[in-house]
C-alpha cells in the first residue's frame, strides 16, 4: 500500500474532466474543502464543514468518528445523494477512473457534474453499501430483480446474463442461489447486508463506499461479513471507503484512516500509525476508549464533555472545549490539516512550531 503518498496542493479544480497530474496517479478520490450544510429553522447546520482528504487506489480507507461528526453526510455528499434541506455548500470531489475506450484514466469533479452525468458513474465505477440494509431493499421486489435492475440499467446485457451475474455475486458473499427468488422480509439482517454487498459489486466498480454496513449486526455476523469484504476486495481489486464509528472494525479492516470530528478531518494516517501513535488529542481519546482485551483491567476512559452541535461549532479548534491540552490559541485559531510527520496529517496546534511559545 502506498502509505506515504505525498499530498501536495492540488491544482485548482475545473469543470468536468481534468487530466490527472502525475503526482497524483495513485489518487482515486480527492475530496477538497467539502461542505455539506442543512438548512434548518434555527439556521444552517454545518454538518460537513470543510473536509480535505485523498483516497488512494486499492486501499481500504477507514472513516472514523463519533456519531454526528458528519462522516455519513460526507459520503452521501460524495455520492451526490444529499436531499433538501441538505445541500452541497462548496468543495470539489475529483474522481479518477479508467475510461474503457482507450484505457486512459479520466478525472471528473463529482460536485460540478450534473446529476445526469453522475448517474452513469454509479454502480459502474462508484458503488455504495448503505447504512441499515434493513430498509434499503425494496420490500415488494425479489432480490434478483433488485440486483439485476442496476445491471440492466448500465449495460446492454441480456436479462439471462444479468441473472447469471446475480447468482455469481450472491455466491461470492456466501448466499445460496435460492435467495435470489426471495423477498427482503424473508432474509435476516446479515443476509440483507450481504445482498447489498453482492449488489454493489455486480459491475466491478473501482470504488466501494460502505457506510456502517455491519453496525446493526451481531458481532459474529459482523466478523464474517468483514472477512468476506476483504476477500472480495482482493478478488476484484476494489478500493473501499469504510465508514464506521467502531475503531475495532477499522483496526481489522483499514489500511489508512481518517478521523472526523465536528464536520472536519482531524487526523489522517495509516491504521498502524493511528493506533500505535495517535497524534491528535481527540484520536488519543478515541483509542483509549477501546478496552484492551487480555491486558490488565483498567477503567475505560471516555472523552469528557459532549459532542458540539453542527448549528454552532466552537470557535478556533472545534475540539478545544473537550481537549485536555487546550491553550489560548486553540480557542481563537482553527488549526489547518497539515503534514505533521511524513505521510501523516493532523489538525492540531500542538504540532505547529508556535505551540511551545503559545500561552
Amino acid at each position, binding site marked *: 500500500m502506498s502509505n506515504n503518498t505525498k499530498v501536495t496542493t492540488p491544482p485548482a479544480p475545473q469543470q468536468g474532466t481534468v487530466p490527472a497530474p502525475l503526482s497524483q496517479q495513485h489518487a482515486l478520490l480527492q475530496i477538497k474543502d467539502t461542505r455539506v450544510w442543512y*438548512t*434548518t429553522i434555527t439556521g444552517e447546520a454545518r454538518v460537513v464543514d470543510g473536509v480535505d482528504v485523498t483516497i488512494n487506489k486499492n486501499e481500504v480507507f477507514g472513516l472514523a468518528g463519533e456519531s454526528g461528526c458528519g462522516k455519513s453526510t460526507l459520503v452521501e455528499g460524495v455520492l451526490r445523494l444529499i436531499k*433538501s*434541506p441538505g445541500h452541497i455548500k462548496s468543495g470539489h470531489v475529483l474522481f479518477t477512473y479508467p475510461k474503457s475506450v482507450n484505457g486512459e484514466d479520466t478525472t471528473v469533479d463529482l460536485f460540478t457534474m450534473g446529476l445526469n452525468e453522475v448517474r452513469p458513474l454509479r454502480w459502474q465505477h462508484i458503488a455504495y453499501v448503505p447504512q441499515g440494509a434493513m430498509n434499503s431493499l425494496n420490500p415488494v421486489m425479489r432480490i434478483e430483480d433488485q440486483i439485476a435492475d442496476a445491471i440492466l440499467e448500465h449495460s446492454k446485457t441480456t436479462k439471462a446474463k444479468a441473472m447469471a451475474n446475480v447468482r455469481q455475486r450472491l455466491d461470492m458473499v456466501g448466499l445460496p442461489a435460492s435467495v435470489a427468488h426471495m423477498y427482503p422480509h424473508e432474509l435476516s439482517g446479515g443476509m440483507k447486508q450481504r445482498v447489498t454487498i453482492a449488489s454493489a459489486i455486480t459491475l466491478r466498480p473501482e470504488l466501494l463506499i460502505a457506510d456502517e454496513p455491519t453496525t446493526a449486526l451481531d458481532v459474529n455476523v459482523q466478523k464474517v461479513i468483514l472477512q468476506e469484504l476483504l476477500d472480495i476486495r482482493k478478488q476484484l481489486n476494489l478500493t473501499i471507503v469504510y465508514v464506521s464509528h467502531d475503531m475495532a472494525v477499522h483496526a481489522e479492516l483499514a489500511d489508512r484512516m481518517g478521523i472526523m470530528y465536528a464536520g472536519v478531518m482531524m487526523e489522517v494516517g495509516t491504521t498502524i500509525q493511528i493506533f500505535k501513535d495517535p497524534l491528535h488529542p481527540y484520536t488519543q481519546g478515541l483509542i483509549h476508549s477501546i478496552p484492551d482485551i487480555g491486558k490488565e483491567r483498567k477503567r475505560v476512559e471516555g472523552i469528557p464533555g459532549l459532542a458540539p452541535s453542527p448549528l454552532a461549532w466552537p470557535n478556533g479548534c472545534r475540539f478545544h472545549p473537550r481537549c485536555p491540552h487546550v491553550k489560548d490559541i486553540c480557542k481563537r485559531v482553527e488549526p489547518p490539516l497539515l503534514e505533521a510527520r511524513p505521510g501523516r496529517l493532523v489538525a492540531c496546534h500542538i504540532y505547529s512550531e508556535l505551540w511551545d511559545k503559545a500561552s
Partner: protein
Amino acid sequence: MRFLIQSWKVSGKFKFGVITISILIVLALIAPFIYMPFTQGQIPARPGVFAPWMLPSPQHPLGTEGAGRDVLGDFLGGLQATLLIGFLAGIAALAVGVVFGFVAGYEGGTVDTILTTFTNMLLVIPSYPILVGLTLVVPQKTLFTLAFILALFSWPFAARTIRAQVIGMKNQSYVELAKVSGQNDFRIIFTELMPNLIPYLLMSFAFSTVGAMVGEVGISIIGLGPTDSITLGMMINLAGGWGAYTRGLWAILIVPPAVLILIFVSITMVNRGMEEYLNPRLQNVTGK
C-alpha cells in the same frame, strides 16, 4: 392554544380556513340586522309574506322565491341555521365519540372489543337511507332534533379517531408512570391524555361538523329539512325543479351551493392545516 398558533404559523391553508369560516360565522351572527329591512321584520322561514318569484329589486336585492320569501333573508337565515346544525351535531358527536373512544381505548380488552364491534357495525350501515327514514317520521322536526339525528351518524368516526389516539398514548412512558404511581384513571385521562389529545378532538369535531352539514344538505335537498327554519340545503330544494332557472333568479341557484362549498372547503382547510402541523410530511414543501 399553542397548537393553534403553531398551525397558524405553519399552514397557509389553516389561515385561509380560519379567516373564511370566521367571516361566515360573523355573517351568521349579525344576520338579523342585515335581513330585517328586507323581510319586513319577519323571520326568514315565514312563507307567503311576499309575492313569489319576484326578480331582484331594491326591496328584495336577491328577489323572492316560490314560497314568497325574500331570498336574501333565506340565505342569511339559512347560513345561520346550517352552521348551527353543524355546530350542535359536531358537539354532540364529539361528546359521544370522546366517551366511546376513551372508554374503548383506555380500558382495552373485552370492553374495547364490544364497543369497537358496535362502532364498526354502525359504520357499515349506509347512513343516508336511515337518515331519510328518521326525518320522515320524527314528530317535531326542529333544528335541534335534526342536529341530534345527524349526530347519531357522525360520532362513530370521532370515536374511532379518538380511540386510536388514546391507544397510541396509553402506552407511552409518562402515562405508564402515572399509572404505576397510583393515580386514578380519571385523573390520568384528564391531566395526561386530554391535553395531548386536544388537536385530535378539534379535528374530530370539525370532521363531524362537516359530516353533519353534508347530511343536512342531503335531506334538505329532497325537502325533508327542519320545519322551523330555512337552511342552505332547503334553499336548493326551494329553487324548485329549476323554476328559478327559467325565471332568471340566479341568486337562489348559485348562492346556497356556493356558500355551502365555501363552508366545507374552509373547514377542510382548517382541519388539513392542523394535520399538517401534527404531521409535517403532509406539507407541500418540507424543510426550508
